[in-house]
């Protein structure tokens, strides 16, 4: 069973958390990435994620394996949602079960940081003004300027 999954529906947080139960673990850390109502001064109405699933799942599993090996935690899992979602909805969840809290916090942080920079996932912000823009476009724009 995959520990990294992609869904196009509301993330089932209760089921996700139940899947992380482990009697050998005294610590469980969960991170939820949620849709916020602003970015760089612009009011945001909703977000849209495009996910290239075959490679996102493969690379996501790899990141979870790295976290298990690096921090010696018992269980690690994550789910990312694709498609359109509204304010306060959960776009990504990461869970880590470990014997103790230090490694659970560290592994959870590692996983979310790596997911954000390595998975083929793109975020489009829809603004109150009616405009929509792929996030990271400013980086693209500055790359254009540098030729």
């Amino acid at each position, binding site marked *: 069973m995959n520990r990294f999954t992609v869904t196009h529906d509301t993330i089932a947080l209760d089921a996700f958390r139940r899947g992380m139960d482990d009697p050998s673990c005294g610590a469980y850390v969960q991170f939820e990435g949620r849709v916020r109502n602003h970015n760089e001064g612009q009011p945001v109405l909703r977000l849209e994620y495009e996910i290239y699933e075959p490679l996102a799942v493969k690379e996501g599993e790899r990141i979870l394996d790295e976290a298990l090996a690096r921090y010696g935690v018992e269980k690690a899992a994550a789910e990312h949602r694709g498609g359109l979602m509204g304010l306060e909805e959960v776009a990504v969840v990461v869970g880590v079960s470990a014997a103790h809290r230090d490694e659970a916090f560290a592994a959870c942080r590692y996983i979310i940081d790596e997911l954000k920079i390595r998975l083929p996932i*793109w975020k489009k912000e829809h603004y109150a003004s009616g405009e929509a823009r792929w*996030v*990271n476009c400013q980086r693209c724009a500055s790359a254009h300027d540098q030729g």
Partner: protein
Amino acid sequence: MRVKVRYFAAFRDDTGCSEEFVDSAGSTTGEVFEQCRSRHQGLHRHQASMVAVNDEMAQWDTPLADGDEVLFFPPVAGG
């Protein structure tokens, strides 16, 4: 050499298409990207752009073979 090229997110907007076949004289992912740039004026390779070949992450100097599927990824923004 004939390869299938796929564009995602902002790259799809830049090129106006999601995939196309390219007959390439070049032999690496970077060379094929340059050829695609000459077809599509809006297409630029940003510093954080990534490339994959046959569903495995690759580099910009990864060699290609006839029939490969090349995936061009603009800067990612998960989470």
